[in-house]
């Protein structure tokens, strides 16, 4: 057990791609936590999907030992966090487990939308903040100007900001010293009853459920009988360890320490992030306040392509949810798709990530239905219903009005792209609330309907600004508007999974875009296929996918049978990624792609 004064706990926060994970690499490396030969770039981004996309999705913690200049060795627990707005919940959750934050700012980019959002969260969590200016090796780096920007835009003192290059390792020793000198040691009482925060949990195929905790008071040891206070579940600790980042056994953890345990946990539902863990026999009387639950904002249905895989899907979803408290699910049935789940996400990237992880880590082929936000349906009898799935919209004769969620979007953008950004926001039914300048960058605040934002707003924003804009948003509330359900008919059959709520004024435009997109996405069949968008039986847009006219191999002799057969096998495998609607096969990817608009 380590003395409190020799412990420092902190998160590394920043806008996406500003170099958090690379900085974590250097801290791990310089302290010799991981053998040189085991080092690799963004070591903590261990999921395939993180490595492929080059972004952090899950917060990751690691314990390092640092012999400081004062002659003492300190235990540092760092948590590397994701930068993308969809994973902001990971950041806020992580911050509750530590006392300080390294705020990384890319010195060639300056302050961006998530820089701001993260600072506000850190201040909320009472954190001591150490600003770090990264990427000073880049010719475009302007550390002095960015310092000023931090002071002007964020309003925190940046005079002691540390200039570094996480890539080359320049300035890393200064960061380590600053962690020890400038961040506060944790507080806690080792004689008090055990009080530990359940920070995270995940499913490991060898170890079962692994729980990550931060001890506040008391001491936890291997063999202890502990209780999860919210769920009431009681378990004996099988294994206690710290992450270096490999799991390394430890005899006990005291106040201020961060570690993990396993306890033969059967019920995945027993572990809830934010819960307080205490001893069964001598419990604490003051549980921690818990985390504010994440509010999913985008919903969609996930169905197994092979209906026999429903149980596997349930199992996979439960295990994934354990690792991601911001993702919600409930069972759903659909006439066309059978049994599946209606799932809630923090954004579209979050949705894609979860779907990808289910497909890869659990090897289940999925159909994803059109994502939707949550509408409030005010019935004529005065009751209010939440609508997660446009297919469930009640008969409109009983509906008085519909409300949709709105957000406050903050966008930072260089001057020259401001016009494009304003146009984009205007096109998406936005109402401008604020426009200010910090140097040559504009900060625009817009009130926007969430349903115009979740699907492709971020992609569009990036493309109209060549990647120079950054974006953050918060939910603000609900507002009534003229919203209708748009249905899509393929070969004259309604495809529920493609219905969506739209603003009446935008319906024709979206209907047309949807039909055109589907025409590209659905492969040609042996017959021609009408694709229509309709509102309450009235067709508002129509495309026709012409019939396949010719698809035959001209030469096929003895030597070609094998090749031809393999081709067919491949096409059969491709077919598994299709879903049959009447006589038409729709590729499962179409359900999301059809919603992304090109303008």
């Amino acid at each position, binding site marked *: 057990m380590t003395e409190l004064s020799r412990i420092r706990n902190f998160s590394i926060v920043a806008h996406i791609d500003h170099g958090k994970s690379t900085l974590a690499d250097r801290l791990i490396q310089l302290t010799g936590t991981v053998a040189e030969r085991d080092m690799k770039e963004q070591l903590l981004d261990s999921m395939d999907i993180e490595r492929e996309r080059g972004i952090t999705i899950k917060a990751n913690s690691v314990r390092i030992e640092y012999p400081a200049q004062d002659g003492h060795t300190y235990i540092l627990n760092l948590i590397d966090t994701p930068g993308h707005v969809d994973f902001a919940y990971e950041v806020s959750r992580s911050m509750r487990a530590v006392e300080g934050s390294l705020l990384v700012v890319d010195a060639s980019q300056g302050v961006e939308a998530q820089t701001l959002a993260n600072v506000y969260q850190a201040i909320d969590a009472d954190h001591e903040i150490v600003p770090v200016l990264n990427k000073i090796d880049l010719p475009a780096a302007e550390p002095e100007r960015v310092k000023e920007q931090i002071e002007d835009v964020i309003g925190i003192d940046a005079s002691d900001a540390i200039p570094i290059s996480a890539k080359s390792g320049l300035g890393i020793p200064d960061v380590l010293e600053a962690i020890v000198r400038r961040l506060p040691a944790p507080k806690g009482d080792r004689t008090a009853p055990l009080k530990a925060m359940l920070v995270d949990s995940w499913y490991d195929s060898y170890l079962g459920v692994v729980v990550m905790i931060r001890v506040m008071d008391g001491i936890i040891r291997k063999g202890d009988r502990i209780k999860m206070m919210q769920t009431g579940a009681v378990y004996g600790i099988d294994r206690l360890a710290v992450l270096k980042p490999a799991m390394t056994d430890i005899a006990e953890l005291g106040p201020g320490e961060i570690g993990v345990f396993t306890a033969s946990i059967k019920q995945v539902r027993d572990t809830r992030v934010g819960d307080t863990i205490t001893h069964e026999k001598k419990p604490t009387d003051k549980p921690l306040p818990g985390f504010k639950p994440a509010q999913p904002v985008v919903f969609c249905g996930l169905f197994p392509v092979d209906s026999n895989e429903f149980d596997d899907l349930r199992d996979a979803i439960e295990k994934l949810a354990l690792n991601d408290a911001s993702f919600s699910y409930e069972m759903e049935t659909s006439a066309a798709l059978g049994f599946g789940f209606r799932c809630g996400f923090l954004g579209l990237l979050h949705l894609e990530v979860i779907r990808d992880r289910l497909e890869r880590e659990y090897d289940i082929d999925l159909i994803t239905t059109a994502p939707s936000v949550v509408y409030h349906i005010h019935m004529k009898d005065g009751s209010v219903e939440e609508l997660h799935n446009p297919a469930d919209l009640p008969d409109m004769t009983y509906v008085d009005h519909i409300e949709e969620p709105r957000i406050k979007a903050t966008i930072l953008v260089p001057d020259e792209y401001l016009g494009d950004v304003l146009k984009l926001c205007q096109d998406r039914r936005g109402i401008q609330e604020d426009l200010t300048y910090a140097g040559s960058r504009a900060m625009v605040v817009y009130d926007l309907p969430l349903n115009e934002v979740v699907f492709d707003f971020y992609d569009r924003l990036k493309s109209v600004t060549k990647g120079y804009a950054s974006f953050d948003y918060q939910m603000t509330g609900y507002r009534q508007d003229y919203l209708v359900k748009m249905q899509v008919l393929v070969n004259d059959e309604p495809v529920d999974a493609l219905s969506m709520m739209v603003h009446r004024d935008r319906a024709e435009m979206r209907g047309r875009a949807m039909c055109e997109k589907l025409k590209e996405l659905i492969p040609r*069949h042996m017959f021609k296929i009408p694709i229509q968008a309709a509102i309450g039986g009235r067709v508002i847009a129509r495309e026709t996918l012409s019939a396949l006219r010719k698809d035959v191999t001209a030469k096929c002799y003895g030597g070609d*049978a094998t090749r031809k057969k393999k081709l067919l096998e491949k096409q059969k495998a491709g077919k598994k990624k299709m879903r049959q609607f009447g006589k038409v096969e729709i590729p499962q990817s179409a359900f999301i792609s059809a919603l992304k608009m090109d303008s």
Partner: protein
Amino acid sequence: MSTAPDWQQGGFGLYLHWPFCQSKCPYCDFNSHVAARIDQRLWRDAFLAEIARAGRDTSDRILDTVFFGGGTPSLMDPDLVAAILDAIRSTWRTSNSFEVTLEANPSSIEAARFRAYRDAGVNRVSMGMQAMNDDDLRALGRLHSAADALRAFDTARATFERVSFDLIYARQHQTPDDWRTELDRALALGLDHLSLYQLTIEDGTAFGARHAAGKLPGLPDDDRAVALWDITQERTQSAGLPAYEVSNHARPGAESRHNLIYWRSGDWLGIGPGAHGRLTLDGTRYATETPRAPGAWLDGVSRETREGWELSPLPAAEHATEFLLMGLRLAEGVDLDRYDAIAPRALDAQVLAGLAGDGMIELDNRRLRTTSQGRLLLNAVLRALLVDD
């Protein structure tokens, strides 16, 4: 009652691959190579060794056909062809209608050898005419002129019992009128077998690369390709040479017996570099394959290492897939009783009914046939039929 092995309903043939050509045509993805020097004696020894080997398991059978394919087999020394055919005849009994085809390029050099090939036992030639005008022949990278080809054809007809030729259509800038005229000229020659292929742009060929670079203008779009196909069906039909297979037309009775073995899922031996075979032994159907590179094959035989020779049992599902994908190319279609005996499970009745409703297939008694329309969409028909195995 002991039932006859399935392959007997297709027949038994021997395919022999000659992998050399005088130059490589830009559209061709066959296993064909241009070599400076070819030691035909070495090749003879190797072919004879392979024939002897193949005879070990099958010498009790009656051989229906031999096909010299390529490459350009008309570059083989007539002595070589004779030696091979002698060996074949002394290994197997041959059927009464024994068919021996040789693929020939229609140039004067080759025509000079026709008589010797006939004397060796070749009784059918298939000539690579490809086009009947010089501009298009040049565009296809062929070495012969249209006049050369016609002269070679005359010689062939005077020499062999049966002559067929190949044309490639749906060429660059070819209009339906162009094709109708050209096809009518071909049909006016009064032959009883024609192979008419729509030009396919294959990966890994010069045309493939040019096409990918956008430098192969004037290829037909789908609508034009279908119009050209329709003309082909109509003209050959009225000339008495209807399509009996996707790209093959014959006066009834004049079909290529050898190629029918493939399409009817018979057994055939594959001899030579990159040759594939299908062979049923003791009730198990095998797929055989040899190395594609001529040098590797020759080495493998002469050193008796036979590295890269493959003989793998064909699972029932794959056998069934092949049976359909080959058989539905034929106008005569397939026998569903045969299919059911081969396949792990019968075809889905609902899918069949759907395809019949769309005019893609016809079912009568237990015969399943593609319509002309269905044959044009054969890949889609197969995808529909072979869903959830």
